[in-house]
């Protein structure tokens, strides 16, 4: 298939349809509104359903229902809207239902701004809803990867019966890049024999539920969830690394911020500095082990985020105190520039190459 130029938000919709998503429930909010708009136009063409719910809370509960009946389903929003969805997300995780949730982040807290940010890292990776649950969190850095991760995200969700979150920001949602649609490596996906599809009088009813009133039962349920999360940690970590074995400084950044870091790294290399990059693609499970590969001569790690320091906590866990961990961030919708990153790296060098 030839490449087409698409806006990130529209590419998400096209990728979801390519993955067989037949249901989309959402509510508009900048900077992701092109996605529901695209779905409202395209879903009917493939015999799917687009529904603009009365609120984000309604939308996520429609996802709960559709997923419970075995359908491939997606919702999307931006930061404040994703906050509203947290109760439903916790229920979906508790009931072990597959779905894809897209968060095109904007500045916060509260209504914040409509400009790009990465301030929902904690919410996405630590669970914004109640209970000991985890989302698989995928963080694309360009529109092609966004498409690939949406398509694979539906498979991951189905394989583990777990919600998958795509964590992007306003920049990737709004920008246009060439994309092509490719099917991911085939996974052996289990039958959805748990779905509430009607018994036809031939089996006991399937029940979708996250309520376990007996403490013993809920503990067993949580143990089962933790076993599943362990398997996901073993199988699903994705990370991109560049030159970390003999770098003097390693930058850790994800999503669009990692691209800005790459521009800074090229600039620094031209001046003779040795700078590597670790770009987590899965934020949960976090690629902790990748940091073990950093060479001993490394002077420090610089984490760059569009927030005041969230992923930096995971970087500190990953480095186990082997290296000093520095942080540079912009927030409120401000985007760090390559020159700012270059300056910060030189500061860490302390004036010596």
């Amino acid at each position, binding site marked *: 298939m030839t*490449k*087409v*130029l698409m806006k990130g938000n529209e590419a998400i919709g096209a990728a979801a349809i390519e993955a067989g998503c037949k249901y989309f429930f959402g509510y508009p909010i*900048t*900077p992701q509104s092109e996605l529901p708009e695209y779905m409202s136009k395209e879903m009917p063409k493939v015999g799917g359903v687009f529904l603009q719910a009365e609120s984000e809370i309604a939308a996520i509960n429609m996802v709960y229902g559709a997923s419970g009946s075995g359908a491939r389903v997606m919702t999307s929003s931006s930061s404040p809207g994703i906050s509203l969805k947290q109760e439903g997300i916790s229920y979906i995780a508790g009931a072990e239902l597959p779905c894809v949730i897209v968060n095109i982040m904007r500045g916060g807290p509260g209504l914040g701004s*409509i*400009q790009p940010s990465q301030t929902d890292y904690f919410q996405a990776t630590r669970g914004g809803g109640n209970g000991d649950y985890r989302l698989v969190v995928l963080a694309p850095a360009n529109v092609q990867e966004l498409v690939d991760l949406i398509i694979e995200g539906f498979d991951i969700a189905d394989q583990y019966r777990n919600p998958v979150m795509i964590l992007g920001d*306003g*920049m990737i949602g*709004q*920008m*246009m*890049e*060439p994309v092509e649609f490719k099917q991911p490596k085939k996974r052996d996906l289990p039958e959805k024999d748990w779905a509430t599809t009607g018994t036809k009088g031939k089996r006991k009813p399937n029940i979708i539920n996250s309520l376990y009133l007996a403490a013993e039962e809920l503990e067993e349920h949580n143990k089962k969830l933790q076993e599943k999360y362990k398997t996901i940690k073993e199988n699903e970590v994705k990370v991109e690394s560049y030159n970390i074995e003999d770098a003097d400084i390693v930058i850790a950044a994800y999503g*669009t911020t990692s*691209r*800005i*870091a*790459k*521009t*800074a790294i*090229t600039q620094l290399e031209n001046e003779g500095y040795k700078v590597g990059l670790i770009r987590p693609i899965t934020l949960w499970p976090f690629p902790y082990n990748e940091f073990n590969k950093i060479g001993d001569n490394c002077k420090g790690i610089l984490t760059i985020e569009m927030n005041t320091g969230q992923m930096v906590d995971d970087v500190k866990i990953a480095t186990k105190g082997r290296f000093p961990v520095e942080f540079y961030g912009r927030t409120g919708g401000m*985007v760090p*520039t*390559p*020159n700012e990153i270059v300056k910060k790296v030189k500061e860490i060098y302390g004036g010596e190459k």
Partner: protein
Amino acid sequence: MEERIVVAGFGGQGVMAIGQLLTYAGMIEDKHVSWLPSYGPEMRGGTANCNVIVSDDAIGAPVIEEASAAIVMNKPSLDKFENNIVKDGKLFINSSLIEQKAEREDIDVYYIPANEIANELGNDKVANMVILGAYLEATKLVKQESVLEAFTKVFGENKAHLLPLNKEAIEKGAEAAKSQERVTM
């Protein structure tokens, strides 16, 4: 080669379209491309802009800090972006709406009366294509044919009947860039 272009003007002047045509044309020529719009509240009646990168290599930051060229369709855009252009970069000024001259002396400046030329062609709306034509002539970033091929991809097949007018606008813009010589101040 990496060309970093800022296109700016009032909402409605077609600056996003100029950017998309350049981006699509770059993709047709197998280059790496990205297009990033401003999407703040400023778009309602103020200035709008987009950042376009066309490169031989994979594109890092899609945000342009230092532009190799800027196309400005109104005065607020000139004020905002003149100082973001690299030394020896190019600046395309819509002189129909911007009376003031550029202050920089270390860049190449082209004064293109885009709206006047568009009006001569009978349609003020193609002013953006006029200045795009000037840009293409001055930089040779992508071929005119690629831009014309991109036209129906960006605007849809139902706009194909407007292709001859837009082609003419591009050509008039190119002539304007050629005839005025390079204005190095």
